């Protein structure tokens, strides 16, 4: 699943470790999400959305919708 996490993180000047600390997950998890290798759970996706003050759809792009 494509996402804007890396761009949003860059806007705030945060490293992957700092973002991981904010979300209570590891740097490796942030790296995997940014690279599109791992889709976060719904609770984590909501947590990410809340942290950046966005709705989930503004951060994560649904592949099905993108294909339409």
């Amino acid at each position, binding site marked *: 699943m494509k996402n804007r996490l890396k761009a949003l993180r860059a806007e705030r000047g945060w490293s992957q470790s700092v973002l991981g600390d904010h979300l*209570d*997950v*590891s740097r*490796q*998890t942030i*790296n*995997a*999400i940014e*690279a599109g*290798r*791992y889709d*976060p*759970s719904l609770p*984590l996706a909501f947590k990410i959305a809340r942290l950046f003050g966005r709705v989930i759809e503004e951060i994560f792009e649904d592949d099905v919708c993108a294909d339409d």
Partner: protein
Amino acid sequence: MTPEQATCRYFKAFVPAICVYAVGTVGITWLGSRSLVPSAVLYMLALVPVVAIFLAFWAHWRFATEVDEFLRLIQIKGTLFGIACVMIVASGWGTLETLADAPNLPVFWLLPIFWVAQSAATAIISKREGVF
């Protein structure tokens, strides 16, 4: 809890448990082969490695619950691979023993097969997922 802290806690419980398991297994095998203790005592002593195995799995379970969801998924995938290897060896070799008179494979080896397969799979998946 950071993955590093969880890993540290894991090894602090897992390594002693596996050491007790290895020493206990070798010791009991040695005692049994020399008939140095009565069978009843041997059965009691055989519980030592069993408890150690339980502690090793408990440490693994705790580790999987302490890391975050992505790292937990890697652990689950590795564990599933380990279980699959054990089931394939057990059922495959069992069939050979039953139908083709293959030599007996002691079930003792299933646990080492599990840990080797689980560890290798977890390491490979972690590497592929960029964990290290």
